[in-house]
Every structure is written in structure tokens, then in C-alpha cells.
């Protein structure tokens, strides 16, 4: 009988007591030449462990910037970013890379698989950063492929897979290190409606059955509907939306007030 989780607890390695994501008064300003361009201003966000949060907003609103800050790919100009209890805004670049490899699973708009490697080898790439034995690596790859429903397709190259299957392999790669947070940047942006539905079903199942905390950036209201909560980002500020897309509560009060 095959396994369908990496550890004994299906909820993964997330911090149960604390908020999974605690963004406190964060600002991020870029510079175009000498001109400062503020993208996020005094933004506060709390995301609970096991939550599936969709982040919407128009292009240039700062969704990806916020995602990058939470995933440890970028640093805030001001404020604090605490993920899984770790104040990641204080970590050095090297430590941040190690932290990402252990705690964050990335799903991108395009699956971005390495064309010369089979699906299972693509899934195994993050395991290069671990000290797992070959057997344990094999086990984890098998489980990840099983979770995304591609156990039989592990030997296939990306070009031999459909767009949806490629995205599933990308999700398996994101899962293989059993991260506490899945960060998805437009995961259905490159897929047709039916395939998008399958990928969203998979994300929902990962959240519901495997306890994965998911932060998903999307332009698609249909995709956002599948999340347990949707936030709207505009002009560098957050607001909570109802399932009909209307803004119901501004989310820039002190931590916890908006949830």
C-alpha cells in the first residue's frame, strides 16, 4: 500500500499555535533611478496555520511583491515578516535560502520544469539540498507524485506531459520537502478552464486533506473562490473580500483584527 504523506502527521511541519504568516507594518519601496516607488505601505497581514488564502488585485498592485516577502525571496524596506515563527526579515541571504528550502514550496504560473530531466527527477531537485538518503529521496518523490496523481508518469519528460500534468509535477516538486507553506503565483494562469479546475481541486485537497497552508496569488475570481479566504490588494493596502468579490473589511489594523 502506498504512502500519501511525508511524516506521521498529515498536517506537515507547520507551527500549530502561532500564526503561520504574520506580516507587521511592512513596506516595500523600489527605486526607479533616483525616484522611490513605494509598492507596499504599512501593510499588515495574518494568516493562520492550515489556511488557504487567495490574494487578488490588479496588475502592479504589489501581490507578487507581498508573496516574495512572505516566501523569503525579498526583504521589506520596513516592518517585520514572521513566517512559522521565524522572523525571516532578519535572516542573512544564506540562511534565508536554507529556510526556503525547508519551509516553502513554490508553484509558479508556468511549471518551469527542466526539460532534460524526467518528471521524477524534476520533483527530486529540491532534495539535492537535503541530507536524506537515496532511499528516503526515492520515497519522498514517490509520495509527491502519488499525491498529485502522477505515479505512472514519473519517467516521462516534460514535453511528453500535458500542461496540466506539467503543473502537477511542479506542485509535486513544491511538496517534496514537506513545506509548511505553499506559495502559488498564478498557478492556473497558463491553463484552460477545465485543467485549472483540476489544479485547484488538487490545491484544495492539499489544504484539506494534507493540512497544507496555501497562499495563492491569482487574477481569477473563480480560482479565488476555492480558497477559504480572499484578500484584495490595491494601492499597497489590503482589504478582505466576500466570495462575490466585494470588499468587506479593510485589513490594515493591528494583527488579528481583520481575521
Amino acid at each position, binding site marked *: 500500500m502506498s504512502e500519501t504523506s511525508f511524516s506521521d502527521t498529515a498536517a506537515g511541519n507547520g507551527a500549530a499555535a502561532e500564526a503561520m504568516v504574520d506580516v507587521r507594518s511592512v513596506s516595500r519601496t523600489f527605486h526607479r533611478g533616483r525616484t522611490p516607488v513605494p509598492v507596499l505601505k504599512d501593510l499588515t497581514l495574518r494568516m493562520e496555520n492550515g489556511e488557504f488564502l487567495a490574494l487578488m488585485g490588479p496588475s502592479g498592485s504589489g501581490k507578487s511583491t507581498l508573496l516574495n516577502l512572505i516566501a523569503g525571496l*525579498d526583504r521589506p524596506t520596513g516592518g517585520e515578516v514572521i513566517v512559522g515563527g521565524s522572523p525571516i526579515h532578519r535572516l542573512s541571504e544564506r540562511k534565508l535560502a536554507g529556510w*526556503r528550502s*525547508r519551509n516553502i514550496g513554490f508553484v509558479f504560473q508556468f511549471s*518551469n520544469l527542466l526539460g532534460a*530531466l524526467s518528471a521524477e527527477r524534476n520533483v527530486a531537485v529540491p532534495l539535492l539540498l537535503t541530507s536524506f538518503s537515496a532511499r528516503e529521496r526515492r520515497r519522498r518523490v514517490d509520495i509527491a507524485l502519488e499525491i498529485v496523481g502522477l505515479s505512472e508518469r514519473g519517467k516521462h519528460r516534460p514535453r511528453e506531459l500535458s500542461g496540466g500534468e506539467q503543473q502537477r509535477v511542479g506542485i509535486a516538486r513544491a511538496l517534496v520537502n514537506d513545506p509548511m507553506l505553499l506559495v502559488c503565483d498564478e498557478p492556473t494562469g497558463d491553463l484552460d478552464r477545465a485543467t485549472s479546475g483540476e489544479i485547484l481541486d488538487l490545491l484544495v485537497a492539499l489544504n484539506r486533506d494534507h493540512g497544507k497552508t496555501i497562499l495563492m496569488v491569482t487574477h481569477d475570481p473563480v480560482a479565488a473562490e476555492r480558497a477559504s479566504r480572499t484578500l484584495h490588494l490595491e494601492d499597497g493596502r489590503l482589504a478582505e473580500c466576500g466570495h462575490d468579490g466585494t470588499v468587506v473589511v479593510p485589513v490594515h489594523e493591528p494583527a488579528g483584527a481583520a481575521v
Partner: protein
Amino acid sequence: MSSFTLISAALRRKKTRTFLTFSSVVFAFLIFGVLSMLQTAFSMGAEIANEDRLVVRHRVSLFQLLPQSYEADMEEIPGVVDAMHMTWFGGVYQDPSNFFMQSPVEPAEYLDMYPEILVPDEAKLRWIETRNGAIAGRALVERLGWEVGDRIPIQPTIWRQAGRGDDAWEFELVGVYDADVEGFDQTQFLFRYDFFDEARSFGRGQVGWFMVRIADPDRAPEIAAAIDDTFQNSAAETKSESEGAFAAGFANQVGNLGLIVTSILAAVFFTILLVAGNTMAQSVRERIGEIGLLKALGFTSTRVQRLVLMESVTLVTTAGFLGMVLAVGLERVLRPALAAYFPGLFLRPEDLLLGLGLAVATGLVVGIFPARRAMRLETALALRRL
């Protein structure tokens, strides 16, 4: 799966480009191997020269003659153990293209002077018994299809026989010599000096040059100077030098081979730096998104830099190794085929090691800038290129 899987995947990404770059590097190292072989062939005389042997020639040129009586005078000089003479004969066997070195020698003295030459005792005896007897190197005998006992006619270009006009000299091949030193010239044809001296139409008692064995190689410059001093202000002044310096000077008559070879190799490797460097730079430029992905997954900047550097070193070193293997293969084919013309044509182990070292160094130099670029990429910016 290891980091090498990622390197291999990166190299297989654009197979045609990788193949072309790989082939150019293979070819460059093949050229390196061949030029190294040629350089060895030309410099072998100097390399295998004995430190305890001096060459004494006419001060003006190698082709000016010296009195044979100098031999006895030189043997009187302190530090000189033994002396013997040789003379450039310069004859033609059948066709000028069959060029090989011929010289009259005194058999016993010659064999004493060159212990590295191996001649069967029976052949030595026959040589001493046979006035027109000659011995020849194994490579020459095989090249011209001779057998012991054959009559070898050699047409004179300098040394005609008294009263016989342009008639060929006729020698009897009494033995074949081998050598126990790699690269020793096995293309010489050596015959008896007494036979030559009596029969030649002019120049009796004159010889081309002397080989002098000395007791202490450290005193070579001092003894060479003493020899030259002895014959100073005589009708035939001498120039003495070590056998190695003499051989090097002889090889350099073709040109400064070291400089020529180095110049060609510099041009070849400069081109390789450009070709492989361009490939690596292009490869990294095309993979910015992919590199961003690796960094997002947790690969540190240093690790990404190392991956790109290893990719470059793998590409160039593998190609360089293959080029050197092909050069060794070529040597295996050329060496027996050209042994009669280039007795020292072989690839020395130190040249093989130098080639492999060059391959690693070239790989590092080619990869360093693309690797640094990959290292410095900002992850978030790089991911936008996905």
C-alpha cells in the same frame, strides 16, 4: 541524483550548441597534442643528450672539417675521458627523398661513446671484420626494407671515391642497432672510417666533428673552454658545447620551434576562450529564470555559482580529455609510421598532464564570469523571466 544531474541537464538543453562547442574544444586539444608531439620530436636530441658528452666542431660551421689528429690532443686535456669523430657523408640512397644521416665512425670508439646503442655481439664482430661493413638503426632498416647482408649503394654528393668519379659507395649491412633510450635516433647509417678515409678522393685525415666524453658533467663549460683554447689560433679553431646545446641549436635551424608552437597554441586557446565563453554566457543568459527558480527552491548564490562553474569545467575538461585521448590514438598510428623520419615523435606524460591541467584551467576561466553573473542574480527579478 546529484548536482551533476543538473549540470548534465543544463548541457543537454541546447544539444547542437553544446556539441559544436564541445567539438571545437576537442579539436583544440587534439592540435595541442599534435604540436606537443612535434615539439618533442624536434627537441628530443637535446632532451636525451648525455650530460657527460661534448660536441666539438669547427668554429665557423659544422660543415668545415677538422684534423683527425685533434682527437689525440683532446684526450690529453684533463677531464677528457675519451674522444671520437664523425663526419657528415650526405649521400643519396636511390632517391633524395630517402634521406637519412650517414657517417663514417670507428666502430669500437663509437659504441663506447654511445652505450645506449644496442648491437648484437655477432654484428659487432662482423662490423670489425668487414671493411665496407655498416650498421643501421632499426627504424631505417624497416622503412627501407633492408636485411642484414644486403649491399647498400649510396651515391656521393660530397665524398667521391678516388678514381671512381660519381660511382656509388657500396656498403654491406652487417647489423641493425636498437636503442634503450626512448627517442634515440634509430635512422642512422654508420660505416667504418678507415674504409671511408682510404677511399675518398680528398680530405684525408679530416673529420666533421668530435664527440668527447668528460669525467665530470659539472666541469663541462670549463673543459669545453680548455678544448677551444687548445686549438685557438690554429688553422681550424673549434667550438665546443654540450651535446644538449648542440642538439638544441641543430633543431632551431628549422626555426624557434618552442616559440612557433607556443604562438599557435596561444591563438588556438584564445579562440577556445571566446567560443566556449560565449556558449556559457549565452547559456546563463537564457536560463536566468531557471537560475531564479533554483535560488527560490533554496540553492544559495554560492551553490548556483559553483553549478555554473562546474558546468563550464565539465564541458571543457571532458572535451579536452577526449582531445588528448584522440591525440594519444593519433600518436599510436603516427609513431610507427613516422619513426624513420621523427624518431622522437611521441606524447610525453608531462604533456598529457599539462593538457588536462590546461583543460581544467580553461574551463574555470570560461565559466568564471557567467558563474558570477548567475551568483549575483536577484531571485525575485530572475523569477520574472520564467
